[in-house]
């Protein structure tokens, strides 16, 4: 069967059009359906809203924003969430972070994270609010304990806490000697703030709008990006995992990413599901004195917890803003998008001896087109 790429090339030659021209074959009905499914404007409400009733609460968002930038919420007064999640770098950072017992890990972007169900590269947290507690209470990051977090919150944010959670909640938080409720309050507020970090429409979204309106294509979506989009939804098979408005299926896959060093353990989701069940702030735990709405946790209720497919599987990240957030993969194995594309082209088995990938028949111009498309996201 003739490949789509050779068809495209034939079309371009037949009509005397070069690769730099702005005309490519019209999209078929099936292709349009796929492209439409990637449009940011169809983003549903955040998944986190099912776990945190303070999503969309202005006072909680304001408190969460203050906490996010506050270095007093750290053992030595030198670390805030913003230390690693830098706004000017799409709430990520380029430097790698060495996580004890896990190895080097790239700092994921927080933009769009409230639409996710599981957090960290192995999904060991099952809500965004619970995820935010993790770094606060980890040595080598914020380095607090639940008790010192409680002290810092009450010392600096007592009135904010009252405003968001009410007098009774603050009273319960004060009486709780373990500090667990203080961690829940901090997590719920931080999560409310992070949920406001929604991706902005990209050149790709503007392009989709023109596809469906028939208006002129945007200048920032070049012809090479259109060719790259075809590869993305066809021969490249990228859309298999990078689908939906955030370009992620919110799942876990083993793509054979090489380990960076001996500490870089390729266990991934297989350990994540175990840690998730042991987490003291897991979704199924009720903290009704802080959040009176019982979390639904449906995503946890049905999740698969066993099978070889979990070994070496890491979370599929959003591709929104991907140009800004290298190095790439969970452990920063690749410095550039071109290197990432070549890894997918070759489909080598990684440190587990397996990969879900199939080798791709991409030539250099395909790789360049794919990168060109990714840079518009």
């Amino acid at each position, binding site marked *: 069967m003739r490949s789509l790429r050779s068809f495209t090339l034939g079309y371009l030659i037949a009509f005397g059009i070069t690769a730099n021209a702005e005309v490519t074959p019209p999209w078929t009905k099936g292709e349009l359906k*796929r492209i439409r*499914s990637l449009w940011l404007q169809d983003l549903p409400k955040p998944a986190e809203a099912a776990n945190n009733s303070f999503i969309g609460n202005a006072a909680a968002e304001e408190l969460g924003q203050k906490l996010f930038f506050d270095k007093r919420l750290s053992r030595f007064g030198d670390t805030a969430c913003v230390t690693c999640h830098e706004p000017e770098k799409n709430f990520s950072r380029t430097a790698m972070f060495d996580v004890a017992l896990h190895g080097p890990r790239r700092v994921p972007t927080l933009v769009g994270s409230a639409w996710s169900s599981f957090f960290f590269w192995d999904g060991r947290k099952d809500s965004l609010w619970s995820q935010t507690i993790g770094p606060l209470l980890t040595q080598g990051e914020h380095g607090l304990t639940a008790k010192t977090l409680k002290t810092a919150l009450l010392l600096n944010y007592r009135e904010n806490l009252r405003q968001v959670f009410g007098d009774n909640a603050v009273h319960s938080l004060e009486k709780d000697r373990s500090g667990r409720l203080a961690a829940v309050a901090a997590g719920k507020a931080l999560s409310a703030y992070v949920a406001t970090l929604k991706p902005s429409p990209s050149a790709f979204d503007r392009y989709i709008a023109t596809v469906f309106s028939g208006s002129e294509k945007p200048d920032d979506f070049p012809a090479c990006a259109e060719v790259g989009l075809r590869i993305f939804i066809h021969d490249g098979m990228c*859309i*298999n*995992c990078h*689908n*939906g408005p955030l370009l992620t*299926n*919110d*799942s*876990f896959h083993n793509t054979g990413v090489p380990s960076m060093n001996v500490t870089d353990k390729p266990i991934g989701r297989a350990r994540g599901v175990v840690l998730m069940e042991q987490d003291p702030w897991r979704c199924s735990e009720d903290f009704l004195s802080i959040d009176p709405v019982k979390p639904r946790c*449906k*995503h946890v*209720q*049905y*999740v*698969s*917890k066993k099978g070889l*497919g979990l070994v070496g599987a890491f979370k599929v990240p959003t591709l929104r803003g991907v140009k800004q957030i290298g190095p790439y993969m969970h452990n920063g194995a690749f410095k550039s998008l071109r290197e990432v594309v070549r890894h997918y*082209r*070759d*489909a080598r*088995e990684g440190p587990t001896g*397996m*990969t*879900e990938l*199939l*080798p*791709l*028949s*991409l*030539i*250099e*111009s395909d790789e360049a087109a794919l990168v060109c498309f990714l840079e518009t996201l």
Partner: protein
Amino acid sequence: MSTPKAISHPFQELKLKLLAQPLPKDLHTAKSNSGQWVSVSYSPVTEDGEVPLATLHSWKLEITPITGRNAAVTDVAVGGDMPRHKHGLTTEPQIKRVSESGYTVQGLKFHMPGWWRVMVCVKLTEGQECVPFDLLL
């Protein structure tokens, strides 16, 4: 210009064989005469009645022992995989009986586009049968 890399690993050869399987033509949502024991139909519980991609949702099942068979349904199990990829659902669906012949399957999530095969396995007082349903997402 680079050329595609040679495929050297047995896993890759296996995967290419899987990928070469032809897509199914029978996409019916009701199968009344494919097996010996039961007829089964499904309908997604979604706003548009379509099976959604990468979204947790439910199905309604109707399971009826074939006329003339003196057997009652005692257990139902549902699983799904992608025949071309050899991996399956990332969820473990749960089944509840809601009427004499009606069941709900909760916790289905098809996280990749492509060919999915959902198996509805029914155990009866006499015999058992698995009914396959193919979907193209």
